[in-house]
């Protein structure tokens, strides 16, 4: 799979995928006539131009041609798909997740498949866009949450992996014994990119939430996009009025064709020591490119006007569904 910046398409081998159109540019076809007909008559898609037959949560396309479990597989089953040429880290071998919402912060684990036959994510076609793309199914239903590789909110004593490296770059102390108390994470996010904030990183004891309030956040500045949480649980693929692709902005930010400093600042607010944004699409693009974004604290009037409608996240803002594409989560990476 290759990104062609000249055409704005993904060359997936068999055919090209146009993210702006949210579909392939040619029909998917199989040599077997019945299999080919099955694609056209599939009630879920009704056509052969969609990615993963219109179900990117369940299906995966590695070459733009077929997905495991599709009608194109021979009776003996699909051959193992070739590994995509990407920098996506291999999925770790984890224990099965316990059921229920409470499992979200229970620790790294393997999510139960969604639906009747979901084998895994299908967003590998975006794998080359960043250094830590993660295709998760649904953070609200699973616990394969990259945040868990970074810290454990249930126990408050595990900081590791990507978050630790990221925190180190930002001068944040991730020592288990000194960073987290009382089931609330205080201070760290508030300090990221905010600049000039209090030197104490976390409340070592006592009320962590109070420590977060004490630390505060500067009115404006730059902040690591992957340290900010989404308020919504899904976003559309385009910006206001259908102008501009969210994925394209992420790509442009990643390859330097766009500068985060030229974007309007995202509006953020703090709740329980966490930073959320009202501007989920710009935040998505920033997280996708893994850049710092300009921010400003949201005025209370705008919080009052928008938050009652927008605060639909089902995973504490650590991931979001790009409608028609799939679920993404880069938080804390």
């Amino acid at each position, binding site marked *: 799979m290759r990104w062609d910046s000249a055409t704005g398409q993904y060359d997936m081998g068999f055919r090209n995928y146009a993210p702006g159109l949210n579909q392939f540019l040619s029909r998917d076809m199989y040599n077997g006539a019945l299999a080919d007909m099955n694609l056209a008559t599939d009630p879920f898609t009704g056509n052969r131009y969609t990615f993963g037959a219109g179900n990117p949560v369940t299906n995966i396309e590695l070459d733009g041609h077929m997905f495991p479990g599709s009608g194109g597989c021979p009776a003996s089953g699909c051959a193992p798909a070739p590994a995509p040429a990407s920098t996506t880290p291999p999925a770790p071998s984890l224990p099965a997740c316990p059921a229920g919402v409470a499992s979200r912060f229970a620790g790294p684990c393997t999510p139960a498949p969604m639906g009747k036959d979901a084998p895994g994510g299908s967003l590998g076609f975006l794998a080359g866009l960043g250094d830590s793309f993660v295709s998760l199914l649904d953070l609200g239903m699973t616990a394969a949450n990259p945040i868990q590789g970074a810290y454990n909110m249930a126990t408050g004593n595990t900081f590791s992996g990507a978050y630790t490296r990221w925190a180190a770059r930002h001068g944040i102390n991730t020592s288990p014994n000194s960073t987290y108390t009382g089931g609330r994470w205080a201070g760290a996010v508030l300090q990221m990119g905010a600049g000039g904030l209090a030197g104490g990183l976390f409340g070592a004891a006592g009320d962590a939430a109070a420590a977060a309030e004490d630390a505060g956040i500067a009115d404006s500045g730059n902040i690591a996009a992957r340290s900010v949480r989404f308020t919504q649980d899904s976003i559309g693929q385009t910006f206001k009025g259908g102008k501009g692709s969210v994925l394209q902005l992420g790509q442009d930010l990643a390859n330097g064709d766009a500068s985060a400093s030229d974007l309007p600042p995202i509006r953020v607010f703090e709740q329980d020591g966490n930073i959320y944004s009202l501007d989920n699409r710009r935040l998505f693009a920033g997280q996708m490119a893994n850049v710092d974004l300009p921010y400003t604290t949201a005025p209370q009037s705008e919080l009052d006007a928008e938050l009652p409608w*927008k605060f639909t996240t089902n995973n504490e803002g650590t991931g979001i569904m790009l409608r028609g594409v799939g679920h993404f989560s880069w938080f804390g990476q």
Partner: protein
Amino acid sequence: MVRAVNAKETLIATLEELANVARSEHGDSWENVTLPGFLEAMAAWLHSYERAYTNTGRPIPDDPWEIMVAAVRAATMYE
């Protein structure tokens, strides 16, 4: 029944109010200024509307009319 009638009237009034706003210069301030965008946003919000209430500590309405009033307002700004 009285409650339902009132909520229905509220929905009608809300739609008329939003139609007037959409025709005015303030319509451009909406996040979703096209009909497809508005409808997609409303569908997405309805998919998740319960959490918009629980995440903000409000009771979830049990009156479908009231939910529809909220849905059309949400569709003006839901991303």
